[in-house]
């Protein structure tokens, strides 16, 4: 009897959030999926079924091809930069230097800022004027310290514009990656290192053979968290570039979705972009979820 009552209580208590998630997350996903195969253009919903024509149009559109390429470049560079900088900082802090707490906070602080704020600041820092009399931001700094070869068109560079967006994104998220790695490092028992040292292993060997393999779960979590941020990034890009840079040099699918749905009022096509973003994130997240469920079940 007791057990049944407690179960009833538990179900009653979680039911509101289950209901809310069912409607506001999964319900709207289904609704978006329905809209993505509809002819909805203009203000009034039009659910005429048009098959996958919205998706076909998208993959033919030069702008969306640029978006996909940009997302790919952005995700790879952003992940690589965040993971390597985060790991490096974590290893350094793990040596327990004086003032460790202070450094830890300094590295973590950028994460407390919204991407919009970061974007506004970096829009100014990444000012793309390259003629000497109109330099400002980073370009001016480079000029003043004599590093003129570093002066760049930043996010308005026709092919590499998206790379400029990686810089502020990494600035913001590498501290967070450091925190993840630091927690991982601290959870590795000291006995393992001691034992390795007793056996005559060098510090490099300890990292290579013991610590890095034990950090794999942390790396996986970091990849998931950073990956889903980078695949659906919107706020940072719109704050820096407004309309996606020069010739969509820094455009991403989420930005395209916003303009397609709310400026052009092509809701069907906007929904198609949303579904593609969802699918790319799912490709990343679902295997991770399966993996977690399996490990939990094994335990």
């Amino acid at each position, binding site marked *: 009897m007791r057990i049944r009552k407690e179960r009833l209580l538990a179900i009653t208590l979680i039911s509101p959030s289950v209901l809310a998630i069912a409607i506001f997350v999964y319900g709207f996903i289904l609704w978006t999926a329905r809209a993505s195969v509809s002819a909805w*253009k*203009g203000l009034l919903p039009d659910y005429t079924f048009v098959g996958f024509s919205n998706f076909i149009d998208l993959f033919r559109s030069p702008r969306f091809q640029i978006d996909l390429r940009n997302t790919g470049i952005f995700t790879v560079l952003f992940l690589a930069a965040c993971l390597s900088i985060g790991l490096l900082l974590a290893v350094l802090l793990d040596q327990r230097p004086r003032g460790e707490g202070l450094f830890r906070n300094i590295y973590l602080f950028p994460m407390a800022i919204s991407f919009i704020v970061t974007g506004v600041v970096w829009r100014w820092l990444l000012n793309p004027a390259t003629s000497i009399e109109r330099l400002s931001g980073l370009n001016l700094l480079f000029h003043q310290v004599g590093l003129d070869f570093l002066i760049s068109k930043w996010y308005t560079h026709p092919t590499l514009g998206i790379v400029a967006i990686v810089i502020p994104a990494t600035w913001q998220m590498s501290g967070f990656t450091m925190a993840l790695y630091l927690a991982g490092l601290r959870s590795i028992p000291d006995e393992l290192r001691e034992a390795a040292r007793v056996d005559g292993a060098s510090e490099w060997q300890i990292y290579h053979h013991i610590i890095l393999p034990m950090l794999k779960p942390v790396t996986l979590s970091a990849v998931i968290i950073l990956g889903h941020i980078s695949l659906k990034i919107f706020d940072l890009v719109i704050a820096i570039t*407004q309309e996606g840079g020069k010739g969509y040099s820094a455009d991403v699918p989420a930005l395209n979705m916003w303009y397609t749905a*709310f400026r052009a009022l092509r809701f069907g096509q906007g929904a198609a972009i949303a579904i593609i973003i969802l699918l790319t994130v799912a490709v990343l997240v679902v295997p991770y979820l399966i993996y977690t469920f399996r490990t939990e079940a094994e335990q």
Partner: protein
Amino acid sequence: MSRKLYPLLASLLVVATLLVACQPATPTAAPTEAPTAAPAGPSGKLEIFSWWTAGGEAEGLEALLKVFQEQYPNVEVINATVAGGAGVDARAVLATRMQGGDPPGSFQVHAGHELIDTYVVAGQMEPVTFLYKEGGWLDVYPQDLIDILSYNGEIWSVPVNIHRANVLWYNKAIFEDNNLEPPATMDDFFQVAETLKAAGITPLALGETWTEVHLFETVLLGTLGPEGYAGLWTGETDWNSPEVTEALNNFDRMLNYVNEDYAALSWDQATQLVIDGTAAMNVMGDWAEGYFKAQGWTPGVEFGWAPSPGSAGAFDALSDSFGLPKGAPNRDAVIAWLKVCGSREGQDAFNPIKGSIPARTDADRSLYDDYLQSAMDDFARDTIVPSLMHGAAAAPSWQQAVIDAVSLFIANRDVDAFQEALASACVDAGVCK
């Protein structure tokens, strides 16, 4: 005992939460209440929705609201504004409200296709032709403008102002130093630009994507002429014609004379280049005049203006207008508001402050400065054509397709692909075959 109560309490909590969630977030104002307090004229609340938040335009709206309040003191006006460049954010908010059946009393919208293709075809507006007939407005608004406002034989909104898109602004000191005249034709422009470039001055200041589309539209107008340009949006001019190719080549050539960091500048930062003297010319709508004046420049002294190259005799117009949504709360007050918007008094209060010209042709000229007076003369005389970038010429989806095409073109500079994209955008819009 208490253990038995837990599930009960918990379920009560759930029910209470749901009930609270189901309530409307804001109590809807009862619009037709309390007529006793007002013997004459409408009363109650009236919500006016706009994106006029910047300097000049916000004050202009205040002046217009003041005229309204003097005539209808019993109406409580709710001034609802949503900030954001050229109203994109406001339009997203408005579209959501209209879809949800919660229209504001009246809302600012670019006259022409932005209103018609968004709200009129969706059956969400009431025609306002009766106001034009009652007020005798058909005689004081130019016919070209009435055509832009009309759809299916009805007029759908009341314009409060007119802006001109095809204006070339120039720095007079630079032109005098180099013995130059403002360019009248495309060929003149390229000659002037060469001279300026040789003198080390950026000939033309340009800004971010929408200003590029704005420039592109004036090049189309300057190359094709008013009839040819207007025909692009009705299917009468062929997008694949050699004339359009010529226009695209002109645009391509023009891009050789602009500041290199244009993709990163807002329109006013681009205009600032002309004030700073780093650039000599800027093609921008006549809201730029307000910016020049705000920086302490006097029209005709420090800066001059001319129709954009090749577009003399054409007036590329955009207009902010207000309409009557179906099911608007407090319809009487909305109609009163629209009457004020269309009145000479209302327009003469709003426009000198906003820096635009009245849509009526019978306004009091003495209230307006030199530039605006010259624009009023042109408005009465020239052929009026609808602006693309500012919502008058084409449906929003077509407009976005052109924006995409221009944006891709400025990166790859491929004229053939550009023309193909523009032609297929016209087909997608259902206007061309």
